[in-house]
C-alpha cells in the first residue's frame, strides 16, 4: 500500500448548514417566519410560547416544534392552548440539529404565519446549529443573573434578538437589567432587546410587533 496525503477542507457542520438553508428556503417561500428560541433550562421559553399563543391569535397562526431531552410535556402545554406542536425528544443530545427539524417538515401546515422552534434548554451547544430559522432569540431570565452574556458569549453573539424574561421577579433580585443588556450589546451590538414578563404580559405587545413586522418584511421580500 502507498501513502497519499489529501487536502479536504470540509466544514464539519456543512451538512447541517445545507439542510438548514433548504428548510429556510422552503419555509420562507411559503411565507412562514421561523424563530429559534435558545436559553438555559427554566428561563421561560415554554411560558413565552403560551403567552405568544394568546397574543397572536386569532389574527395569526402559529405552530411550535419543541426540543427536549425527554418527555412530551412542553408540546402538551402548547397543544392545550390550541396550537399545533410537535415534540422532538433528543434522548440525551444537548441541542437540536437541522435534520431533526427537516423530518417534521411535511407536518407543518402551509397556511402558517409563525413557526417557533424551542431548542433544548442549554446556553452553549444550540448556538452552533443553524435550524433554518429567520430569527434567533436568546432568552435570559432575571434569576439566572445579569453576568451571563459574557460567560456564554456564543449564544448572544449569534442571536438577532435578546429577551430579558421574568422581569416581574427583578425587584428582590440583584439583577441589573441595564447591565445585562449593556454586556450583551458589547458582544453583539446589533441585538434587538426586549424586556418581558410572559406571565404578567409585560413587553409582549412590543415583542409581537417585532415578530409581525419581521413577518411582513419577509413576505414583502419574497412576494
Amino acid at each position, binding site marked *: *500500500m*502507498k*501513502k*497519499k*496525503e*489529501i*487536502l*479536504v*477542507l*470540509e*466544514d*464539519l*457542520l*456543512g*451538512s*447541517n448548514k445545507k439542510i438548514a438553508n433548504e428548510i429556510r428556503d422552503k419555509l420562507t417561500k411559503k411565507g412562514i417566519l421561523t424563530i429559534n428560541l435558545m436559553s438555559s433550562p427554566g428561563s421561560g421559553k415554554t411560558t413565552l410560547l403560551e403567552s405568544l399563543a394568546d397574543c397572536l391569535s386569532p389574527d395569526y397562526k402559529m405552530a411550535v416544534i419543541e426540543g427536549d431531552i425527554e418527555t412530551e410535556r412542553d408540546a402538551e402545554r402548547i397543544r392545550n392552548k390550541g396550537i399545533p406542536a410537535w415534540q422532538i425528544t433528543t434522548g440525551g*443530545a*444537548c*441541542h437540536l*440539529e437541522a435534520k431533526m427539524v427537516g423530518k417534521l417538515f411535511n407536518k407543518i401546515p402551509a397556511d402558517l404565519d409563525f413557526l417557533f422552534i424551542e431548542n433544548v434548554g442549554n446556553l*452553549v*451547544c444550540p*448556538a*452552533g*446549529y443553524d435550524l433554518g430559522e429567520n430569527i434567533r432569540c436568546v432568552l435570559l431570565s432575571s434569576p439566572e443573573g445579569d453576568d451571563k452574556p459574557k460567560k456564554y*458569549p*456564543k449564544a448572544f*453573539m449569534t442571536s438577532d434578538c435578546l429577551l430579558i424574561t421574568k422581569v416581574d421577579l427583578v425587584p428582590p433580585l440583584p439583577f441589573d437589567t441595564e447591565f445585562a443588556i449593556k454586556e450583551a*450589546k*458589547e*458582544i453583539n*451590538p446589533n441585538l434587538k432587546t426586549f424586556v418581558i414578563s410572559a406571565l404578567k404580559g409585560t413587553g409582549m405587545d412590543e415583542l409581537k410587533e417585532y415578530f409581525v413586522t419581521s413577518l411582513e418584511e419577509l413576505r414583502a421580500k419574497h412576494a
Partner: protein
Amino acid sequence: MHELSLIANLYEIMEEKAKEQGAKKITFVKLQVGVLSGVVPDFLETAFDIFKNDTMASDATLEIEKVPLKIRCLSCGMEKTSDELIYICFECGSTQIKTLDGTELILEKMDLLI
C-alpha cells in the same frame, strides 16, 4: 458537549473522501478548530478515539490546530489576532467588530493508505 455528534459528521466526511480515493486505511487526520467554535479540543480527541474502532481510521492519529480569533473593526479597520474574545476595538472603542477567523470546525487534510 456536542463533540460526539460532530465526530459522527467527521467520520461520514472522512469515509466518503477516503472511498473516493480508493483508500484502505486512514492514518492521519488534521482538524482546524477555532477558539469560537464552541467545542473543546480534548473532548473531540476523546470522541475521535471512541469512534475509530472497527473503522478505516482504527489506527489513525488526530491533530487539532487551534485557530485563534481574528477580528476587524468595521469603524477604523483595525485587525487583531487574539486567543481571547474581543468585544471593543482597542484603537477607536467601537463595538462594531467583525469576526474573520476563529469559528472554524474544518477537516483540513488526511493521510491515506491506498
